[in-house]
């Protein structure tokens, strides 16, 4: 088992024929993902990477039965693409695009929620169910199958964590890169219960960073609802106040959103909080008694 996506998931790509869209769609197909087509307005009727191209998401959904869309369109058009997907009945949009305006995403997410569409991202590596389905830009080979679920705000730190878990002889069920922007789709609080309910997942790794309060909300949720061991690392323990650290969301203002505050809240919720990012794998193994 896994969460959200598996080998049977049918995926379309918005921004299919662009440079990024093409490269990553190809990588996903090689991994085994069922990419059944793509959308590029004006190129409907053509074939790309051996798959049909449609003018609208609605056409693509009707013709292919796709339930998930992977979005690569440029930042200025991202909100539009997300809302089109929601309008067309897509169930999950995975938004890879980096640099979308915050207000645009605020409106896009409101509409997605209204339409009952889940979103992941923006500005994220995507989602991968190990050895079954990769919808995103992560290097697939790092994700060997095993009993650990992974939720992370950071891309490369996801790879680092997965690599450590695999080196311990364990592996990943599903890994979700939720992104670090101020407005994001699925977050810890929505993903944790999915992993809790997944019989194959035995432990959950959560990687957070400074800024915002998602990790604090997650801590409260874990205390009440999660019985599986949770291992957490918060990046940015040494980041100075008021400085933007690459991710739009990773900025501490005043006394809120610090790594310290998040680590304390998680510890109080019974989470195994790791201080050094090199200890993630080891701590997972220990929590699982291996």
């Amino acid at each position, binding site marked *: 088992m896994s969460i959200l996506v598996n080998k049977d998931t049918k995926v379309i790509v918005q921004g299919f024929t662009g440079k990024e869209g093409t490269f990553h769609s190809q990588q996903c197909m090689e991994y085994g993902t069922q990419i059944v087509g793509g959308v590029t307005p004006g190129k409907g009727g053509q074939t790309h990477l051996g798959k049909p191209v449609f003018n609208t998401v609605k056409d693509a959904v009707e013709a292919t039965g796709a339930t998930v869309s992977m979005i690569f369109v440029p930042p200025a058009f991202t909100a539009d693409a997300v809302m089109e997907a929601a309008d067309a009945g897509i169930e999950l949009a995975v938004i890879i695009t980096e640099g979308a*305006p915050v207000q645009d995403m605020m409106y896009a997410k*409101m509409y997605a929620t209204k339409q009952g569409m889940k979103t992941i991202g923006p500005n994220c590596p995507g989602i991968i169910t190990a050895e079954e389905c990769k919808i995103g830009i992560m290097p697939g080979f790092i994700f060997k199958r095993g009993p650990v679920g992974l939720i992370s705000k950071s891309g490369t730190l996801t790879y680092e964590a997965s690599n450590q878990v695999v080196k311990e002889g364990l592996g990943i069920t599903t890994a979700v890169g939720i992104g670090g922007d101020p407005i994001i789709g699925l977050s810890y609080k929505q993903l944790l219960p999915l992993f809790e309910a997944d019989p194959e997942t035995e432990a959950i790794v959560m990687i957070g960073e400074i800024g915002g309060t998602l990790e604090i909300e997650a801590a409260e949720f874990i205390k009440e609802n999660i019985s599986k061991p949770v291992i957490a690392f918060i990046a940015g323990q040494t980041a100075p106040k008021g400085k933007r650290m*690459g991710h739009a969301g990773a900025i501490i203002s005043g006394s809120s959103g610090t790594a310290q505050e998040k680590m304390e809240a998680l510890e109080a919720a019974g989470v195994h909080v790791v201080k050094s990012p090199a200890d993630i794998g080891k701590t997972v193994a220990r929590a699982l008694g291996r």
Partner: protein
Amino acid sequence: MNIHEYQAKEIFRQYGVPVPRGGVAFTGPEAREVAEQLGGDLWVVKAQIHAGGRGKAGGVKLARSLDEVERIAEEMIGMTLVTHQTGPEGKKVEKVYIEEGADIQKEYYLGMVLDRSLEMPVMMASTEGGMEIEEVAAKHPEKIIKVAIDPTIGFQGFHGRKLAFGLGLSKEEMRPFIQFAQALYKVYMDKDAEMIEINPLIKTGSGAFLALDAKMGFDDNALFKHPDIMEMRDLSEEDPVELEAKKYGLSYVNLDGDVGCMVNGAGLAMATMDIIKHEGGEPANFLDVGGGANPDTVAKGFELILQDPNVKSIFVNIFGGIVRCDRIANGILQATQQVEVNVPVIVRLDGTNAQEAAEILQKANIKNIIPATDLADGARKAVAAAKGELA
């Protein structure tokens, strides 16, 4: 991106958010001219820098004659202002804003920001105007009134009433206040602001509300929609090294330590700083070379790190996903030819093509380059090297 007070007030005026009359000046005589045009017998001379806390640092002064305006402006322009928000190095004042004196009856605070948990903007008001709002939030959270505004309905009367009643305003004061708040909401939304702060918002003797100060920050991702805001960018307010980095698609922030870091991905870059500290060292910088790292960006990264004379070792920590490690290894070699790298460079390359990368570096056999097996090993070696303890 942040702008100056005088620029924020210009935007406020366009939207009918009341502000005192004023003008910007780059020299003493210009300041005098602005004051003369404003008329009256009381002016405020305000240093224009992108930082709060100017008043306490001597960046806001009252003048009671045109001579005084000119003298104060001349003193202020060129001085370095150190406030709690500038850091110890302070900021050089290049222009001043001359404003008519206001009849202050009471000071309030009014601000707007995105509430990330509610996923909508919130307006915050407080009767504790003129105070550090962080301090008020910490000591008297009950004195801050917040309203979340669902953008699908916009700023309604009830939002305004909730704030006004919270501030204890009278019936007569309510109307001008709500109009003020409504106009401010429109500024925030129309301009893709990230933050607006008015501290203080004042009530005058005649019952009007005026923004006596104005701070605005914008969502960088949305600047493409606002060429007028882009034009307000003041590059002299930004760190020149950070700007240079941005040109090459790198994200760089200078810090106080001596272990330079070059990492791909913001999260891993922060984690790398953390592990350096964990191992007893101090990071000299945050540097994210991004997902599209190539030999040129790596070379540029070395150049940026080495501009900092405090750097005693460099930790290159790359987890190759789409970025192939062999390309990074070649980048490191190229960099050592372009830039003189005279400190130990600890290299940890993992992920796609890590094996090939190790071979490339081994074959090149450059004396300053020390391979590391994993994150912990790399951090330990980098910290030891910075302390001169690496054998």
